[in-house]
């Protein structure tokens, strides 16, 4: 059974933390989402760039800029 996200609190932070532990989603992608968020804000252009880089070089799991 999947862990529950509490109805109150920081949803985005909880979601990333729980899904990373569960390992049902692609961890390198979760890691990129986490890397490009500041609180609940997302650096969309940065995440897109990193995802494309990851697709071209799967070894570069961190999608370093």
């Amino acid at each position, binding site marked *: 059974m999947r862990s529950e*996200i509490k*109805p*109150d*609190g*920081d*949803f*985005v932070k909880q*979601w990333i933390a729980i*899904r990373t532990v569960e390992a*049902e*989603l*692609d961890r*390198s*992608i*979760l890691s990129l*989402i986490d890397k490009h*968020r500041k*609180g*609940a*804000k*997302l650096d*969309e252009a940065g*995440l*897109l760039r990193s*995802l*494309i880089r*990851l*697709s*071209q070089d*799967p070894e570069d799991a961190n999608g370093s800029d």
Partner: protein
Amino acid sequence: MQMAPIKQLVVGGFRGVLSPLTLPFVKGKTPRSLVIYGRNGTGKSSITDAWEWFHTEKIVHLAREGAGPSSYPHVSAQAGETYVEVQFANDDLGKIRLDFDPKRITMPAASGNIANFRAIAPHPCHIRFEDLTRFVYLTKADKYDALAQLMGFTTQVDFQKALKRVLRSLSDRLETLERDVDQLESDLSACLSLTAVDDKSVLKSLNQLLARHSIGPVASTEELRSASKTLTTLVEKDPGSQELSDLRALRKAIEGTQLPDGLGRNLLSYIKLAEALKQEERDAVDLLLVNLYEQGLDVLTHRREQGLETKNCPLCGKPFEGDLLDHISAELSSLQELKQSRDALEKKRRQTQKLLMPLSAFSKSLQDLWQEIEPVAKQWPIASLIAHLDEVEKTLDQLRDALQVEPENITTEVVKLMQSGRQSLLLQVGKLETLQKELLHQTTERVQILEQDTSRAQLVTDHTKVLSALELWGRWTVVHTQLIGLQKVHRGFQIAVDDYIHSSTDNVQKRFDTVSSDVQTYFEILEERTEGLGQPVLKLLPDQDRAVVLQVEFRGEPVYPAYRYLSESQLNSFGLAVFLASAKHFNPDFRFLILDDVINSFDVYKRPQVITLLKQEFSDHQVLLLTHDSVWCDQLSEKCPSWVQYRFIRLEPGSGPVVMEGVSPLEEIERLINEDKPVSAGRDMGPFLERQLQQLCESFGVMVKYNQRNEYTLDPLLDRFCVRVRRKLGTNHKLYKAVKALQEESGFRNICAHWKDPESPITMQEMLAVVEKWKAIDELVRCKRCHVFLQYDGRSGFVCSSCNITRLQKA
């Protein structure tokens, strides 16, 4: 945990407040709730804005209007004068101040433990009238966003939208790569006559070609490159083969300079469409208004379905003569026709742009090949063709520039440029075709001679195929690898985004479930007087992104979606219920609420229900209430005497709100008596008594003769009230005696006769006696604990509706 978390709020240099404005919440030594009365434009909303900024560092409703942090300081505030300071009752929080930094307007400087405060209060504490009204007119997705604001999950919805935008961009990129791969596969298939493109098939086909020229099989791109060089050497060794190869390339280059079929027709129809759009009565720029008119039509139709007429323009507020709905429908219809014309022109523009491919690459090939075959082609008109192509290219450039202009920006000059470009092209095409035809004829004749040697023809054909295949296969390998990588990442990201949306929806549903019981309770208190309405339930639509609908029970039947059936006021009740329930549940450690003019949207009879709701369900909360309804404010002060009161008298542009301590109506009357102004006191006492007696008669279930003229109603109200008290409590009851005493008071009779049109003066002593006698009654008919009027219990007593204790019984 403190019952009332705030002791004092100070706002300086912020929005409408210039001089520091201090709002103490303390009465005696205890922090209390606070009500601020002020007419519109006296600066009340600056307080809510200041709180929102202090809590979240932004002001959402201003951002919606395009006003950012630079609009937060008062126009005359100097650097360092814009701040909000809160003194908390909780010693751990103490005093916290947030200063606006003019150099970094989005990064205010905080002193004190603001992070701790925000951790204790993670949920919005404030709500404005406009937050409730927005709820009425929005689409399903927008309602979801409005609920997100009321329930404090805006950030997770914003994150969801951001993830979806990234997914869309990734999908677009994937689509482009798929198109590129398809094109390369199609070219490669045509080149090698393949049915499917993969490394094995490509190598097999190429090895068959190479074998014809005794070149051994290859197994990789590298080996193929080497084999192609061997083949090139074979071609170069035979001058005839080299010439044939060059001539075939020349023929291909000449064919490449042919203008596409249909270019002339496309240019003509584009010009006609552009001219037609220019002749429209309306400017294409007006198309920006289409969304506005569509929303306007939705709103007006919605109102008409509810039986509401809209006589004023919802944008400018000015009266509209005629049927506004018909007018907006006609305007929208005209704009939609204009949009169709614009869209047709845009489609044609894009089609034509695609036909205007540059000819320069073919010119360059012609130039290079000409040098290779010069001895054979000395007399051929290649130079003329190249020179003429330069002229044609200039014309095409002119047309390309004109086609860059989007339909909204097309001017008469642009249309003229298109027309002259088309004319030039028509003139140039004849010469171009003649030169192409002559050159193709000469080239083909020479090719036919060389192709009489079939082995030579085969060698040149295979050589061309191998070179093309090598180039296409190399590109295909790179792009195909990129595609596979992107498909994998896209799939993984899509699953993550879907999971986020699913989790967020579950989370929101849990929030709904958590607060739903309270939402029902609060909604039913607010709508207590609406017969048959209740049981509101929020439902998420799982198959739609960010869609939520409301269901209510109407006369026992579930109504879904309820937005179509509820009035604006009922929807506002629902919105307020959701906000209050969410604030209660999601800020359990910070029980503070700001309600900014929220009763505006409620009918007058429903406004007291807000007081009832606050008293019944939020007695453990501290409330900052802002209102411009003085009657309602007086009702609040009677029912909640412990609240601190302020009045914003006016707004001084050079300083801010002019504030005075608020007093109850009776205290104001006593002040006038003390200042020896009995006539003024009498004028205030009349409406005050009338309002009090109307409420009392309702609570006591008194039957009063209806008076449509609304004149001199005090006497019959008190008379019938006296009869009711005598019948239910008896003539020995002290309430009956107190009522009789007031009834017999000459001052009261003077007020009855003259308060609406005073002719004879009333004395100070008479006024004093009336006030004292009214106070004696008020003390008996009001619950001492709950401060509300008692209600007839339907049998023989009078009970407090709040604490349910019987306070009056027959003597």
